[in-house]
């Protein structure tokens, strides 16, 4: 999922300064799962902002609404009824949601309530870790299902580097070496011969070189 983290309240308060009516818009998708921008956090932020603005002597009307996603037109449309007289929307979705909402309601000011961090997994309740950089050409088949682009600190395609020691990456003793993980996985599967295969330089044009990426599926288009 996309993992995000709420911004400091001070920063959000600054971005709604001068507004008379504010909507804090939650997202029921990824950011609900990573406990950062769903209905609960949206209510908490709204409450905190109301209090902050009042203490600062600039009381403002703040309401909330949360729908399943902010990255799909049908849910974005549902926010319409909440936008009457609203000057600023604090979107609690990831950056995609903020932008997609802003695109759909061009006369309203949208500001992010969160910092969108990465595509990750919940390794424990309360811990989220990055797992994929959305590079556009996945090499997991060659690396035992461990991503060298994101789990190796240097994104090496053929590792490990000289800094790998005792299974840890040289950047910190708490960071497992991505290539050690790949080695261990392949060894456990009796597929170590994959380590001897040299992975060619990646075709980074499938990443961001061609500008914003787009996927079209004619089979499901209406």
């Amino acid at each position, binding site marked *: 999922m996309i993992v995000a983290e709420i911004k400091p309240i001070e920063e959000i308060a600054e971005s709604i300064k001068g507004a008379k009516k504010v909507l804090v818009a939650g997202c029921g998708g990824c950011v609900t799962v990573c406990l950062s921008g769903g209905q609960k956090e949206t209510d*908490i932020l709204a*409450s905190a902002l109301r*209090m902050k603005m009042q203490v600062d002597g600039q009381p403002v009307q703040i309401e909330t609404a949360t729908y399943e996603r902010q990255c799909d037109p049908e849910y974005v449309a549902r926010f319409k009824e909440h936008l009457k007289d609203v000057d600023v929307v604090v979107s609690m979705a990831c950056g995609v949601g903020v932008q997609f909402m802003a695109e759909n309601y061009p006369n309203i000011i949208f500001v992010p309530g969160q910092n969108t961090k990465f595509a990750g997994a919940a390794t424990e309740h309360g811990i989220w870790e990055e797992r994929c950089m959305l590079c556009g050409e996945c090499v997991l088949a060659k690396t035992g299902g461990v991503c060298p682009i994101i789990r190796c600190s240097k994104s090496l395609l053929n590792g490990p580097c000289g800094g790998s020691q005792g299974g840890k990456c040289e950047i910190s003793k708490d960071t497992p070496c991505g290539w050690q993980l790949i080695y261990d996985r392949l060894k456990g599967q009796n597929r170590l011969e994959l380590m001897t295969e040299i992975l060619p330089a990646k075709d980074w044009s499938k990443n961001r070189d061609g500008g914003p990426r787009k996927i079209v599926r004619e089979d499901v288009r209406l």
Partner: protein
Amino acid sequence: MSDVKIVGFVCRLCALISSDLGPPADVDIKIETVELPCAGKVDGRLLLEAFERGADAVFVAGCPEHECMNVKGSSRARKRLEHIKEILDQVGVGGERLIMYNVSGTHGPRFAHIARDMAGLLEKLGPSPLKARKA
């Protein structure tokens, strides 16, 4: 001090039992208690709402952590309070107005202690900054 408002979220398995006695006679404060099935049920939204609705201070009373009837309810409540205290600091209300107490069900006088403690706290801190602004 009698116009101050204190809201206590109280676990029914421990602190509620000891709260039967209410605040001692020498403490001139009212405490509005909200019964919870477990302190671990307390939610950040509830705590903030209490302040928005005019509480000058809020406390949560749950079992001592090593005797929590729901094993982790009290420690979860404490962690949630820590998070909400940070938010209260950030918004200028002040995290020190939110307090966690651990109370055993067989310890009635402990509730009197809480009442005295809260009264002392409010004497020191004064009314909630939200009220000061409204006045």
